[in-house]
């Protein structure tokens, strides 16, 4: 690699890293507790606990809907969801209007058997962490900004891999030059940790970027696929009387055999049309449980209107979520995720230290030690 090429890649690596450093540190630091948000919520008493009902039959969907509306008088239901990993709990989302702002949504957990209100969901310190991590309390612009920082992170990783060759080709893998200056030791650690975590960092970084585009993707789906699904109902007014939720669930199951309802969007919410329920169905394997299939049902009669697989870009979004959160391999994978997150913090911190150290060394009248150990062009 020629000296000029190395300098160019070095410039790319330095500036993409520097610009995104503060935000990447924020993402890594807030992401760390979010890996264990279930456990932290439980520890702090923010996780609703289902009542014990050995072998008892689950309450009907309509009974849960009635309980949710009774718990929030004057409000309307937006969504009801069933978590595969929390079979004892049903979650209901209420708001002042079906198209109310997401920040005004109240999320409550109900016992799946008795429909007893178990408490609010998504509150406490983890909510602050989540908002900082996803949009820094700046809404959609904040999300897109952090997505841009994620892309810079990806460029920094790729340029770092390119620079790994000229900086380490004379060293054995995993060499830390203990006899050298502190700056060189940290350069060795930076290179080693960076290169061994490269695949994980790229996957987590890029899936994070994809997640920041979720709203844009959903809008695209609504404007294209959903619009064509509800086209035969164009001009129909919103339903005056909603169909029974039990009918809606039963018919959605018939329309998607072998699948279970993950969540139901009520007519008028962002996930459906003003006239339809949308039942989002999931399979029962690790992969199919994440690939949802929407079934549209008439809001008044509960009849199935249409059912189609989600387009590839939304399937990519759904697959990218576990790959970003690391919540699909039990507690050991969460611990490994946390360790890799901490190692990424070390890479970012050491990169910043190396840049500052090089600037100090470049000051007039000082020996340019960095230039002395610069990679040899070839």
């Amino acid at each position, binding site marked *: 690699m020629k000296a000029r090429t190395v300098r160019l890649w070095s410039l790319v690596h330095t500036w993409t890293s520097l610009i995104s450093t503060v935000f990447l540190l924020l993402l890594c630091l807030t992401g760390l507790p979010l890996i264990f948000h279930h456990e932290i919520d439980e520890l702090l008493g923010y996780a609703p606990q289902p009542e014990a009902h050995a072998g008892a039959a689950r309450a009907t969907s309509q009974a849960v809907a009635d309980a949710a509306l009774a718990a929030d008088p004057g409000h309307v239901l937006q969504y009801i969801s069933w978590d595969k990993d929390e079979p004892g709990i049903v979650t209901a989302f209420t708001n002042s209007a079906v198209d109310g702002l997401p920040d005004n949504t109240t999320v409550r957990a109900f016992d799946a058997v008795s429909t007893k209100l178990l408490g609010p969901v998504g509150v406490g310190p983890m909510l602050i962490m989540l908002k900082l991590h996803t949009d820094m309390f700046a809404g959609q612009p904040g999300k897109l900004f952090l997505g841009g920082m994620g892309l810079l992170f990806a460029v920094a990783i790729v340029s770092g891999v390119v620079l790994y060759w000229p900086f380490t080709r004379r060293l054995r*893998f995993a060499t*830390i030059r203990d006899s050298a200056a502190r700056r060189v030791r940290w350069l060795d650690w930076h290179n080693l940790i960076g290169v061994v975590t490269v695949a994980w960092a790229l996957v987590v970084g890029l899936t994070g970027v994809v997640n920041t585009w979720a709203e844009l993707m959903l809008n695209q789906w609504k404007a294209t696929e959903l619009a064509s699904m509800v086209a035969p109902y164009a001009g129909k007014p919103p339903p005056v009387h909603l169909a029974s939720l039990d009918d809606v669930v039963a018919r959605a199951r018939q329309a998607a055999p072998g699948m279970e309802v993950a969540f139901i969007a009520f007519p008028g919410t962002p996930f459906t049309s003003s006239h339809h329920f949308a039942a989002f169905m999931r399979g029962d394997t690790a992969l199919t449980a994440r690939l949802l299939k929407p079934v549209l049902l008439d809001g008044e009669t509960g009849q199935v209107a249409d059912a189609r697989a989600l387009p590839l870009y939304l399937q990519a979004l759904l697959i990218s979520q576990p790959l970003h959160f690391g919540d699909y391999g039990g507690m050991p994978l969460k611990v490994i995720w946390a360790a890799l997150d901490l190692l990424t913090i070390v890479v970012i911190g050491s990169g910043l230290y190396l840049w500052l150290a090089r600037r100090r060394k470049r000051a007039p009248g000082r020996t340019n030690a960095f230039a002395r150990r610069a990679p040899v062009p070839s």
Partner: protein
Amino acid sequence: MHGSPDRSRLWIRVFAAPIVLAVSTLTGLLAALLWETAGQYVAWVTVGAPVLVIAWVWVRRRSDKIGRFSRARAGK
């Protein structure tokens, strides 16, 4: 790359371990998603491999330091 055998060997020496670790990580990330319980076990080992490498380097470095210190004391 200019294609000489020496250079290829050097390239392999530099990048072999990082490539093995990257493939191992990607295998583990997908395994847990595709193969449920068995995939989880695979993921714990393969995604955890980079952490183990760093831990091994750190421990090796500490033990080298302690060894040097002990030898220096014994030599006095």
